[in-house]
């Protein structure tokens, strides 16, 4: 089963993601910020990660960079899910190692189709 780690500091957003992803048949782990996300990664090996950018303690950029640093060879796809549309922020995220970018509020079908495109 495809396992997804969703990282967002908003509980509402976490729950929406969880509902959407579980409905689509994914297994979902949740984390509430970058630090928590990196902790979760010690014990889980997701097939894909979805992360917010603006988060306390460790933001999305730092989190992605942290993931990439940890696992270089089998790079897990990381989708950034955020309300930010600024180009420079996207560039930063990609520089940090983000795989893709989805703008909130997300369209459920689109999110799922993108995920399916990114996981084996």
């Amino acid at each position, binding site marked *: 089963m495809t396992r997804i780690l969703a990282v967002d500091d908003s509980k509402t957003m976490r729950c*929406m993601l969880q509902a959407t992803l579980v409905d689509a048949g994914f297994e979902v782990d949740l984390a509430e910020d970058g630090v928590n996300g990196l902790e979760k990664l010690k014990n889980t090996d997701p097939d894909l990660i979805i992360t917010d950018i603006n988060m306390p*303690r*460790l933001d999305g950029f730092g989190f992605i*960079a942290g993931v*990439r640093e940890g696992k270089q060879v089998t*790079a897990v796809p990381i989708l950034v899910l955020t309300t930010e549309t600024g180009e420079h922020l996207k560039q930063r995220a*990609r520089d940090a190692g983000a795989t893709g970018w989805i703008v909130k509020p997300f369209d459920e079908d689109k999110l799922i189709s993108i995920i399916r495109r990114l996981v084996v």
Partner: protein
Amino acid sequence: MNDLNDMFFQECDDLLEGLSSGLNNLEDGGGDAETVNSMFRAVHSIKGGAGAFGLNQLVGFAHALENVLDDVRAGKLTADETVVALLFTAGDHLSDLVDAARHGNDLPPEQGASILSDLKSVSGATHSGSEPGGDAAKEEPPAFEPMALTVDGGLPALADMLSPVESEPLTITFKAHPQLYANGHDPALLFRGLEGLGNLTVEADLSTVVPLRDAPWSTPSLSWKITIRPDDLVDEAAVREIFEFVEGLCDLEIGAETAPPPGDADSVPALAAPSPSAAPGQATQAVAAKNAPAARSSTIRVDLQRVDRLINLVGELVIAEAMLRQSMDEMPHSANTGVDDAMSQLKQLSGAIQERVMAIRAQPVRSLFQRMSRIVRETSKEAGKSARLVTIGDATEVDKTVTERLVDPLTHMIRNAIDHGLETPEQRRAAGKDERGTVTLEAAHRSGRVVITLRDDGVGINRARVRQIAQHKGLIRPEDDLTDTDIDNILFRPGFSTVDAVSNLSGRGVGMDVVRNEIQSLGGRVTLQSEPGAGTSVTISLPLTLAVLEGMVVRVADQTLIVPTSPLREMLQPGQARIHTLCDGDRVLALNDELVPITDLGAALGYRADPVSLDLQFLLLIEGDSGHRSALAVDTIAEQREVVIKGLEQNYESIPGIAAATILGNGKIALIVDTDQMIPVPGKGSAVNRPVPGVTGDALHA
């Protein structure tokens, strides 16, 4: 979806609280980078959630506010007084928008229009291109920065890209950069995605593959040539969408079959790709830097009803324990000390459980105080005063019910303080004071009670004027000898208002008497001190818990009643007291040099007519918040004990003279006397109107 909705608004409340506390920090000059950051995140999260629920008005406003905070965060904008004031106003409006959205409404757009335009003009310079709202969010933004593309021959014009191609076969040449793999992409998956769009052939170009021993692992050397014959309704844009996330991470060329053979692509030299280790290196620093703020304490959200059910059960436990003790006391003395020991252990345990359970309901007064800062801002604006709120002891914990029910009284008190207490900036300057008045809200735990004090540094109470008005309104007689405290306390009398033309602000048809009633219904006391020229302070003292109370069990007119012990000063046996009958028939107790009015509890509560003689009665001397004393006549005094408070209003309504009810060890209900209402106020009879016994009415059918 409803649950999510609820969750969102609950989260909004927390976020707004965070925003507000950040603003206070900022105002006090204490805001560091993380303060602004967390404020930004709060607004950002509200915007994100609001977008998900299609709350476009909220999204739009949050976006504008977020931009300003972003500028402050980035150092493009200094959080000076004007900006902070704007942020406060905007925070208030955001809170209003959330409230409106919670009830499924939008606010009339003109309501926030000026704030919105202020926000926009403040952040205008840096965010001119960025439009708020769901519209912006719905637009599919171009994927990654197009400038980063390294494609030979350049990209087709955007118009060409988007125009549908009539099922023409497309040729795609694709060569991945190392970063593509590092970012979690997999060419095979891209091809699989293409497969869904039409008939596909993929050829790998092996010519560029270097011998294995020379192969640098980080530099992929394969390139592919893909030919796709798209299905109906699939155009080049759809194909491009597959590559959306890899643009800039690969050499990519998409063209019609008829285009010149893209052999050139093969010869693109391996780019000096960014070293994959560069980004993680930066990240390490980021992790270290961002780890600094302290970890949050771990909490769970529990439905308040669950807590209340638990509290009720514990209340039952305490009652059951009392019943057990009572029936044991009635048993012939068995000299069984084991049972006695177990009983006292049980009592201790149930007491400890009760205490812990009540602590669950306790919450810091912070959010209450923060709500008040808004009242201060709004009222001072309306009243043309300048005021700031200083809060002390935000972390003091109070029962949740208390914080909720303090909102209205505190709001009213603050309006009073600013409207009547504080002078205008000009007057203050003339008096040698800071032009800006200070309202201080302080909470503290003091000897088993919670004490909340509201102070202002205004003019203080004009006692001469209060006296004059009170006389005019017939509340006092000219000859009444009143202390300063007595005069100050007139403010709590029903129907008293120091401003003749009821002020638009603090008037609103409520006086301090309403404040006092509300506090008293919480088992609290209000007192007031004032110093002319220096200010006024109102002190509210509340019981820590609303669940138990120490009381004296008494019997009056065949009824069992509880008199709380906290106002109790003295108890007098029958015959012990010197009782005088005044000319109007009222009886008073001579105590030292003071004459204390006597109230027969049975008569005050309408259980019986005033007894002819008080010779056989016990007297309970009580003292109210105002300092006035009264003696309650009762038939017998049974015992002193702790009782569990059961509200009457939940299933019935409030009863004059009665604070609440409790359940005795025998399962019977006893009423708890509201002693403050039993103390006559100077110039007036007992606070409780004495009904004529036996007469009843029915308002519905009267």
